[in-house]
């Protein structure tokens, strides 16, 4: 099985790797680029733990082949904080204790960031529907939804 050379942009930096064409983008991020923030929960697009954006579109990286990322822009959880400064969503997840085991958290954060970029002032219902493809078995979701709404308010410079 010959591998293919893929050149792509990950979190603003050019990245290249050799991929078996059957490997998913998630496999390539984790195994070839060492970006292990994106998690594999189900591998079938149900749980959202592998969420990344591809040319700005929120996708499950387990449902994208690594070779499909050629020439595209990939944004992962590793690109979310600015150095040591956490993104408001990350800060609010900690403040609200919106995580326990943390396995689903990178996916929730990437998905929530994509929501707030499109809709800076979502309703609770909009947050819940947008995040319906991210599964969490610890929190019961309520703290996650509160954290996202609070982060949105924070980013709009309002008190929630």
């Amino acid at each position, binding site marked *: *099985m010959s591998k*293919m050379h893929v050149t792509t942009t990950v979190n603003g930096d050019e990245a290249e790797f050799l991929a078996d*064409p*059957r490997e*998913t983008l998630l496999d390539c991020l984790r195994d070839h680029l060492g970006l292990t923030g994106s998690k594999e929960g189900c*591998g*079938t*697009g*149900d749980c*959202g733990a592998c*969420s990344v954006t*591809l040319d700005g*579109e*929120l*996708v*499950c990286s*387990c*449902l*994208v*082949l690594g*070779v*499909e990322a050629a020439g595209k822009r990939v944004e992962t959880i590793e690109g979310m904080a600015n150095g040591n400064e956490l993104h408001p969503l990350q800060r609010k997840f900690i403040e609200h204790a919106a995580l326990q085991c943390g396995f689903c958290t990178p996916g929730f954060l990437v*998905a929530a960031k*994509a*929501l707030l970029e499109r809709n800076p002032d979502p309703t609770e219902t909009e947050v819940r*529907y*947008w*995040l*319906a*493809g*991210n599964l969490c078995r610890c929190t019961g979701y309520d703290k996650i939804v509160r954290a996202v709404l609070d982060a949105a308010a924070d980013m709009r410079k309002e008190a929630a």
Partner: protein
Amino acid sequence: MRYHTPSSFDDAARLAAEASGVTRFLAGGTDVLVQMRAGAVLPDDLIDLKKIPGVTEIAQTGDGGWKIGVAVSGARLGAHEALVRDWPGVVEGMELVGSTQVQGRATLTGNLCNGSPAADSVPGLVAAGASVEITAPGGRRIVPVEDIPAGPGKTTLAAGEVISAILLPPRGAGGGDAYLRFIPRTEMDIAVVGCAVNLRVDGGRITEARVALGAVSPRIELVPACAEAIIGTSLDDAALDALAGAASAACNPIDDKRGTVEFRTEVAGVLAKRAARIAYARANGD
């Protein structure tokens, strides 16, 4: 596995026709990658259609209809205001497929070619009178959407044939469509029953109608008896009851823990009524 990125549908069709092993076309990949991972389908040749010019475009055709590229995602479909205005039922069916993440990739064409009897986007296309452009090594032909499903996981497409676009007819005056499905929860589930209604009104009376049912038989089907039940009426209670009866009579569903035969048969009638009311209101501009 060989991964191909043809730059035209003619090349894609030729690659598929010349391939001897298991071949799959890749659009959004939300079904194909799951099948590959499960080992259910291990392609020898995977033909990615996304490098073909125009596949992510939604274009109005000369007659006022629409041509939708095979790689247009659900998210892109839902963001196209003019298309949503013309065919809200088609778009709302597609938008019910999967999560936000899946919407970023999944396509109408892929949902059709996956061949699921419960595909949420297909009844809306059938009711709308949509067709597909098929490219084969010999040339192109246009086929109604309802002729593509051939039973669970199967289509009527032959080896070397690839869908190269979805075509929606011009909406015209007094038209409205709607799609409803029943699921046991509020999001992220597979239809137990799906029903799409597309109709045209003139002075409050229905002059044309097409009704399609999903998840209640091995194929998503157009049900002419449902259309006949409401054409010529102003969707009064008698017409709605006749519609519901025709929808239930057309059911030949599976029986499983998500919905018994009796339940699916009854719900098909209920959804037909409700979808018809929505389509009728949209047609009247309400």
